[in-house]
């Protein structure tokens, strides 16, 4: 579930990189290779098994109605939309905000924000969604607000930590070359912080994709709906279908996050 998964791994990875870049590089790479190859294979295999089961299983009318391909497709598409829109909002808000919190007079506020970000991670995702529902009423955009709010924390924290973790002598060197403050930010600080920021984005993607499965509680659709119907009607076929599809989408999105992380990593880091 990672719907409450703390952004800890990101911070850990940063620590490892800082401590022993050479000795741990090989281990991290092997794990990275596994994480880039295993999930797609797993997803393809499980999805293949699901398609085979769906085509051959003897379903009663209720189940057949719920598990129509058109229905599955539209719920899956809703799930992806929820995740992607929320993730885009998160990046658009959290990265600039994080940058701002490492500049000038706002810098003093950054430990407070990191503290809040860490504590906020303990807030149950389902509570946040339900509270926003009671406040704003249901639907797609309410779910988007809840998901964005939840995903902002890891990206904001990693942006701050990533920029603060840069060797100050490099910024100094940039200034020495005659760069302005804005130029060092764009040409030195941001490129160096990108790997840490992107690992925060991946954490946020996983959180959002997981929490999107709860959007069905507030009439915002998504694949959670099949699972919810399955639990309400107590039909195992619906429960397992819903659960499997939610898990597969989450794994695919995590994988996309990793690919994105690798693709955006500036050369030479």
């Amino acid at each position, binding site marked *: 579930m990672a719907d409450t998964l703390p952004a800890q791994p990101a911070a850990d990875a940063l620590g490892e990189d800082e401590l022993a870049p050479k000795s741990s590089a090989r281990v991290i790479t092997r794990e990275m290779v*596994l994480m880039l190859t295993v999930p797609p294979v797993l997803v393809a295999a499980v999805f293949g098994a699901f398609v085979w089961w769906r085509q051959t299983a003897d379903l009663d009318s209720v189940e057949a109605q719920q598990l129509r391909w058109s229905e599955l497709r539209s719920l899956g598409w809703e799930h992806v939309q929820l995740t992607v829109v929320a993730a885009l909002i998160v990046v658009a808000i959290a990265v600039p905000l994080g940058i701002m919190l490492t500049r000038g007079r706002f810098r003093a506020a950054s430990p407070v924000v990191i503290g809040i970000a860490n504590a906020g991670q303990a807030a149950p995702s389902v509570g946040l969604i339900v509270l926003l529902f009671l406040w704003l009423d249901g639907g797609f955009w309410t779910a988007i607000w809840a998901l964005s709010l939840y995903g902002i924390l890891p990206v904001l924290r990693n942006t701050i930590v990533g920029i603060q973790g840069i060797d100050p002598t490099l910024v100094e060197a940039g200034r020495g070359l005659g760069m302005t403050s804005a130029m060092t930010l764009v040409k030195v600080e941001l490129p160096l912080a990108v790997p840490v920021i992107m690992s925060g984005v991946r954490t946020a993607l996983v959180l959002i994709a*997981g929490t999107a499965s709860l959007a069905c509680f507030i009439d915002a659709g998504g694949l959670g709906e099949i699972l919810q119907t399955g639990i309400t009607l107590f039909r195992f076929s619906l429960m397992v279908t819903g659960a499997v599809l939610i898990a597969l989408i989450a794994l695919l999105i995590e994988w996309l996050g990793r690919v994105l992380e690798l693709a955006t990593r500036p050369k030479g880091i």
Partner: protein
Amino acid sequence: MWEFISERGDLIAYNALQHANLVLQAVVVATVLAVGIAVVVDRFRFLDPIANTVSAIGLTIPSFALVGLLLPLTMIGALTAFICVVFYATLPILRNAVVGFAQVDKTLIESARGMGMSDLGVLLRVRLPLAWPVIHAGVRTSVQMSMGIAAIAAYVLGPGLGGYIFTGLSQAGGVNAVNYAVVGTVGIVLVALVADLLMLLLGRLTISKGIRA
């Protein structure tokens, strides 16, 4: 709001304890499981990336999905909630325990052997105490994560404060809907805060003085 809480004070306190109790039991089981697996992984180093991959994939699976997968096997109730929380609680501890054991200086193990310690003695008196700070950090992460997972598991009638959130949801529009949802959500955050402080204290008490940062 205050009236709502004072009327139900005892029940809320009971549910908060139930929530903490579920997480505590699950994390204890998870710690034993994770450390056990990590000992095996440490013995056969080639398992190391596999353990980390399993842990990463497991953490990616949404808890609501795991609930759905468990229901046909364990039915609605506390057992499903417990297994679900144990599953997620194990993963961060496993990850940290593998790293923790790997970081133990090999020469120290050698000297312990030289002193005539048995394998079990080396594990319990040298490797575990030296790896404990890292494992403890994993347990701390686990506790925080489990609080939210226990909330979702309340959907299938798991014990604890999550039930209030779903009561609030089902009574949407009713007078007490917001009260229920706030009590559930804020209650879990408070229980998590207290638990984190206790974990810090546990760290102070259990991390060997010689290696304390």
